[in-house]
């Protein structure tokens, strides 16, 4: 036992002291944060290129609705021949919009030299649709006020009824986000640290350090020491990421919060009263949404989520890390690992691929089977847990994972103890099978 501790200590310390570990610990949360912020930033970049569009409006109804907006400039052509326009518009204009006398489903056309972009197309069609709709409703004698009031913005609140009859505000979006983030983290850590175990084994083998070690400790101790030591490295990294992540978020919050209140003051100074109330309205909406997210967060089975996260994190890691260790023992260098890696990477990648299906239907048969089969359950079950999973399914899945990782550790141990002392040969699956049955 003491020897396993020594091995764990060495595996842990040599890795934690490495520069790459320290860099990754700092860079990790920054990269993750940028993963979230970059799309936001990108969408904030405005297209400054103003597009001039000439409109041939034969109905004459759309002068009001097609106003110059954002980066679109509309010019209405009068009394010009359509054929003439088609030939010449491209000299001065980005596109030519032709609205017939009675605009209907298919008869509005846009001509342009290149493919007109999506935003322009959608903007125009939505404006035309809106105008036609209000006109038609007006024809039917419905007042404009009524027309406006039948455009409500509906946000469905999901409420769970618990077995004791009490009600709880919940949010599908929040459940998806939590499930997806925890599933993704488990997936990443299994890959990163499983491969680290494998590389560690290969390093000891190619350096022939293993020959010296093996006369002091049992191969199984060596393998388990390495797996546990690296698990602790993973947990340390994970812990650092959480601490740093919280720090970054709180810093970002205080910075963004400040700029938010500043901009609020500015708007109050600059804008006439009626516009302020609009602005305030949207702020109210926002804070209401944030409130909702927090309430539904606190209504999630947090204890259950944390427990299952830790369980599947450790269980999944142990299952895969032991198999990675077995592979490391069976090969001479990293290039030879490919053929053995495939059966390990396929289920892992598959479990990320079915995530979409599972989020849509967290109780369906796909979700059930993938969350019970041990090779996919660590990732898939985490996607489901925030939605609430029946206790028996959870018990079945966890039980299967425990049984499988014990079996995989035993198998990997056998392959490992033979493999680490054999060099210079390439092995096939058949060899590994013989090793498994070999009493050694």
């Amino acid at each position, binding site marked *: 036992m003491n020897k396993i501790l020594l091995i764990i200590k060495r595996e842990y310390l*040599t890795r934690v002291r490495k520069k790459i570990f320290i860099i990754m610990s700092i860079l990790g949360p920054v990269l993750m944060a940028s993963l979230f912020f970059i799309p936001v930033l990108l969408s904030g970049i405005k297209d400054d290129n103003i597009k001039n569009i000439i409109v041939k409006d034969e109905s004459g109804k759309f002068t009001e609705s097609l106003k110059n907006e954002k980066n679109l400039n509309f010019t209405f052509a009068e009394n010009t021949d359509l054929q003439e326009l088609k030939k010449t518009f491209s000299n001065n204009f980005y596109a030519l919009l032709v609205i017939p006398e009675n605009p209907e489903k298919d008869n509005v056309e846009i001509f342009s030299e290149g493919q007109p972009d999506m935003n322009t197309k959608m903007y125009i069609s939505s404006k035309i649709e809106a105008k036609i709709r209000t006109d038609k409703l007006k024809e039917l004698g419905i007042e404009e006020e009524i027309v406006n009031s039948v455009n409500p913005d509906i946000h469905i609140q999901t409420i769970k009824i618990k077995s004791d009859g009490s009600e709880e505000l919940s949010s599908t979006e929040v459940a998806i986000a939590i499930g997806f983030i925890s599933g993704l983290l488990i997936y990443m850590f299994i890959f990163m640290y499983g491969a680290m175990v494998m590389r560690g084994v290969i390093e000891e083998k190619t350096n*022939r350090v293993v*020959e*010296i*070690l093996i*006369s*002091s400790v049992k191969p199984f101790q060596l393998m388990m020491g390495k797996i546990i030591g690296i698990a602790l490295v993973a947990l340390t990294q994970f812990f650092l990421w959480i601490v740093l992540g919280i720090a970054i978020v709180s810093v970002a919050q205080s910075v963004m919060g400040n700029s938010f209140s500043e901009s609020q003051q500015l708007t109050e100074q600059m804008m006439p009263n009626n516009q302020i109330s609009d602005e305030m309205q949207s702020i109210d909406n926002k804070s209401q949404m944030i409130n909702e997210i927090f309430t539904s967060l606190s209504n999630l089975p947090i204890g259950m989520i944390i427990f299952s996260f830790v369980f599947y994190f450790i269980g999944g890691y142990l299952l895969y890390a032991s198999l990675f260790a077995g592979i490391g023992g069976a090969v001479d260098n990293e290039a030879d690992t490919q053929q053995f890696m495939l059966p390990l990477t396929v289920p892992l990648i598959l479990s990320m691929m079915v995530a979409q299906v599972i989020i849509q239907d967290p109780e369906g048969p796909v979700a059930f089977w993938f969350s019970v089969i041990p090779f996919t359950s660590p990732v898939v079950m985490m996607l489901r847990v925030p939605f609430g999973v029946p206790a028996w399914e959870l018990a079945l899945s966890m039980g299967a994972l425990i049984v499988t990782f014990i079996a995989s550790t035993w198998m990997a141990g056998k392959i490992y103890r033979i493999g680490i002392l054999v060099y210079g040969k390439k092995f096939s699956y058949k060899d590994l099978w013989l090793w498994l049955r070999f009493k050694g």
Partner: protein
Amino acid sequence: MNFIEIKNVNKAFVNHQALSDINLEIPEGKIFGLLGPNGAGKTTLIRIINNITLPDSGHVIFNGHPLQSSHIQHIGYLPEERGLYKKMKTGEQAMYFAQLKGLSKNDAYKKLKYWFQKFEIETWWNKKVEELSKGMQQKVQFIVTILHEPKLLIFDEPFSGFDPINVNLLKNEILSLKEKGHTIIFSTHNMASVEELCDNIALINKSKKVLDGNVQEIKEKYKSNEFEIHFKGNFDKFSASITTEYEIKELSKNNGNTICRVKLLNNTSTNQLLSSMLQYGQIIGLNEVMPSINDIFIKVVEDINKKV
């Protein structure tokens, strides 16, 4: 008393037989040479003694008890293929190996300091192993092997890759370990390198033991009655007078001095040889030619092959 007894040990791997029915006795406090060409099964046998692999059948007696895993604390093993963690600091790494062998942190530190000074590598304590030369790395490996003062020391190809100065250093250390009562096993295919050190040897070829016993007794048994003679006088007349009693095998001449190798046939004694030679000149020196272990090995293997 025998420190190690190996009884009817067999070991087969997936594709080949590594050891067939090996019996060996390794006396306590002596140096034992396990000799044989590459692939003969030496390393497998050593791994069995080290409890790394288990024999298919047969057993090993360690110091009077059947071998158990707790015995590895009393074994120091320097493997043939050996290495260190390249990125780890030398001292730290030596401490790690020493503690794995069961030494306390304090003991390990004291002993390592002593040996690092003795081998003049103490300035390398805080350097990474990859900065050390190969010879220095081997010194570290040697220190780690003997540090916990095990009763049994096993050296697999100990001198490969060492320069002659370091080979001498190691030989002296090993001899002083023997004087302190440690039992030592050498395993090597380079028989000449350990001949002078070994008290007993076993020759292994193609998974089978072909010969074992005390080195002197074996040489006695396999000597071929040859003598090397340094002779001054009329050698030609002597060789012309040669009868069926002698066979002159080798010859070098220099200023009337002749060195020759004479094989005595038909139970002729050295006295008869000397008296017949004295008629033609003066004998400056005479000594018996003892076969090298290498020669004996080749002879034994050839004999076995002839029988087959």
